[in-house]
């Protein structure tokens, strides 16, 4: 390299140090960590007319105790919200650390959430892994409730909504998942439904909200949610319990409690002639944790009988759920994807969904119990 390029290298150092750092003084001072208020939870309530009330939870850090500040504004689009809130706070309010977005039941029913979620999806500062949820009553009431012995609101809600095996009856729907499902034309998003359990001072996920075109159309109970999750995706199957008709001589039903190890799910599109039809094969491996019947489960034939009975129960449950959802014209199991994968030409998701309830679905559950617990 010639001499002058060496000079250039030296010059680089100077340039970096002087010129670039000098830019700071011209602009407003770059806010740093402690000058920023991080929105961790954002809530949407319906306000009068076309407007909405946006509530943001901004954790305030102080030496002794963490507390959360709430700011709420009435705006007509969600993009305005952050902007308007910024004027209310002494800190720069940024959505970079957002983790949870909540909608009030009313808001989801009347207004639809797709626009709001899209707005947030568009903002590069908002991550794609932000969880969505629906709240009974007003979000404001839920957020400002008193929760003893609970961490700061953002952390609390985030921990509550992150997927765990025990609560896996509701889907863990992030912004990306929501947009993906809403725009995909096959599956429909599901959201957890939160209730403020003010008696016990905590928040509970009680139901699964069914969303169609961004609007709330119905609910599933946790039991329904569990079997639906088992049929939707591999991996996370929550524990379930069923009542089975065990003793042929008596009418009394026996409760069994199952913990699952593994599931395999095969959804197939098997048109009969020109008419569409689906087949769902669900294979589950699990442990029987609690069995109140009289059979000796050490015996293989007895176990096979019980397995068979539980499997039939599950089939029944799944069938019921699918009846319920297809009647609403939604597809939470993403069956239609299999149909789309075999359909040439443009995909007519909407028209097909309208006729969903007439498409026959054959359900087949295979249960294998590998363990029956330690206590006889």
């Amino acid at each position, binding site marked *: *390299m010639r*001499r*002058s390029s*060496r*000079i250039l*290298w*030296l010059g*680089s*150092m100077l340039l*970096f*140090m002087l010129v*670039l*750092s000098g*830019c*700071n003084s011209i602009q407003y*001072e*770059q806010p*740093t*960590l*402690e000058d*920023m208020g*991080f929105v*961790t939870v954002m809530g949407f309530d319906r306000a009068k007319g076309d407007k909405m009330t946006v509530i943001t939870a901004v*954790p305030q*850090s*102080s*030496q002794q105790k*963490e507390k959360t500040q709430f700011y709420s504004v009435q705006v007509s689009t969600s993009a305005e919200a952050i902007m308007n809130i910024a004027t209310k706070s002494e800190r720069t309010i*940024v959505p*970079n*650390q957002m*983790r949870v977005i909540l909608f009030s039941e009313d808001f989801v029913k009347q207004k639809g959430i797709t626009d709001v979620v899209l707005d947030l999806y568009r903002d590069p*500062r908002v*991550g794609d892994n932000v969880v969505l949820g629906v709240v009974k009553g007003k979000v404001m009431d839920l957020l400002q409730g008193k929760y003893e012995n609970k961490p*700061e609101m*953002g*952390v609390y809600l*985030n921990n509550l909504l992150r997927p765990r095996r025990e609560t896996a009856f509701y889907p863990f729907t992030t912004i990306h998942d929501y947009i993906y499902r809403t725009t995909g034309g096959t599956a429909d998003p599901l959201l957890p439904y939160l209730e403020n359990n003010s008696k016990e001072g905590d928040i509970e996920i009680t139901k699964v909200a069914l969303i169609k075109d961004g609007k709330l159309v119905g609910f599933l109970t946790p039991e329904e949610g569990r079997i639906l999750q088992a049929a939707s995706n591999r991996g996370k199957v929550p524990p379930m319990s069923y009542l089975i008709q065990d003793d042929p001589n008596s009418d009394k039903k026996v409760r069994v409690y199952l913990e699952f190890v593994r599931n395999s799910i095969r959804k197939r599109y098997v048109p009969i002639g020109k008419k569409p039809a689906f087949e769902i094969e669900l294979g589950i491996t699990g442990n029987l944790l609690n069995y109140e019947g009289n059979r000796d489960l050490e015996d293989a034939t007895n176990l096979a009988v019980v397995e068979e009975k539980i499997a039939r129960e599950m089939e029944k449950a799944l069938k019921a759920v699918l009846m319920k959802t297809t009647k609403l014209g939604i597809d939470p199991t993403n069956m239609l994807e299999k149909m789309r994968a075999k359909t040439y030409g443009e995909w007519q998701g909407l028209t097909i969904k309208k006729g969903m309830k007439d498409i026959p679905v054959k359900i087949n559950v295979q249960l294998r119990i590998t363990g029956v617990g330690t206590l006889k």
Partner: protein
Amino acid sequence: MNVWEWWRKKVVESSYQPDGDVTYPEAKGEISVEAIEAHFRNVDDLVIKNIVIIGETVTAVYIKTMVEPKVVQEIIVDPLLAMNEYDDPHEVLKLAEEIHHDELPQLLQGVLNGDMVLIFHTRQIILQLPTLSMPSRSIGSSETESTVLGPQDSFTESLDTTISLIRRRLYNTNLKVKIYMSGTETRNKVAVLYMEGIANPENVERAIYRVQNLEYHGFVALPVLKQMLEDKPYSPFPQFGMTTRPDNAVAALLDGRILIALNGSPEAAIVPSAFFELFCSPEDLYNRWLNGTMLRFIRFFGLFVTVLLTSTYVSVLTYHPEMLPPQLLTILTESRSRVPFPPMIEVLIMELVIEVLREAGVRMPTKIGQTIGIVGGIVIGTAAVEAGIASNILIVLVSVSALLSFVPSNYLMANAIRTLRYVFIFAAGTLGMYGQMLTLGLIYAHLAGLTSLGTPYLAPGIPRNMTDIFNGLIRAPVLFLASRTGLSRSPKKLQRPLDEE
């Protein structure tokens, strides 16, 4: 660039002077006691002594600070006293070399080097005897490159000791030692050592050419000489290796490298050297291969961590707060909320404090230095957090990155990295993570353009030989180490035959 050229021309013009007062040993001049006295005017440690031996006046000339009286007695006085009238002084003083009467400059140089000159006035003989005897530091263990295993001796300031330490390990006539004079004023000795047949002749030629073409008033230490020999003097990175350990030096010679040593400096420069090598220690080879590999990984990736750790703190806190997990965010906000400076200033303060601590520790006597290090580190760290000058996480980061910056085995490399860290901090403060990565790119581009004696500095990152991977970042088991590095371009590629047994 014209301004630069102009300025340089001015410098050259203003500094030009004919070197009239430089005399070379090859020059001629008539020898006489008066002439010697004239040259050594005002040199009070010069001894010119007339001794009468069997009726003949003999003038002895030597410098008493370089010659011990005992040596004078043993080597010169005793034999001379035992001499018979008709004995030839050459026979008596077997080590003597005769100087012709017109070789005054050589005589002067000899005296300056600690020789004694005897002028036999009647017989018209001038003899020069090697009497150099002065106390020098004894061979100790290396301070800068200490290891647990392996040889513990290290070079001393005496060039002779340095060369002898190498010779004690290499009994081979192929070890060539070429000694040149360097420094127009100091006229000190520079040695170029290499293994003939193993070192690349082109490299040897280049190294000797550079050593011979140095014009400088005098080198006080090898690091200065090294900087003048290097390919890119403007670069912050050392382009030649430097060692004080004879085992390191011998390994380099055996690999086909060339050593350059300066009398009066206890180091030897290894040319050519590669960037990666400056992170290696001879101990990597003394350890088992897996352990050696792990240590190399730590040293090399420590480089990235040390330049990126504190600067990432700056960029994340200033531009990318979303990258912090919630728990970390809570801790950081809490401790940052009491700090009155922006992150960049905060980091700079703490980095400078560490730097000052290090510097103070080095300058102080060893015992005080240690105390300063420990007390300063703990007290200042705790106090800074309590006083709200820095956040507690930053203290951890700064200490880790300071520790990691001392990991490279080459001290100059460690210094270069520490300096570069500030560039990264500035870049992170102004442009965030993008700035950091851009600076990393700039430094890579710089490194990829560097050469060490004409060979790429980034080798084997820039591929030379396929076999280099066995002794690069990974230190393979010894069975794999069969070839010399591609960097040294040795004519003998293999260290040992491959088809043993």
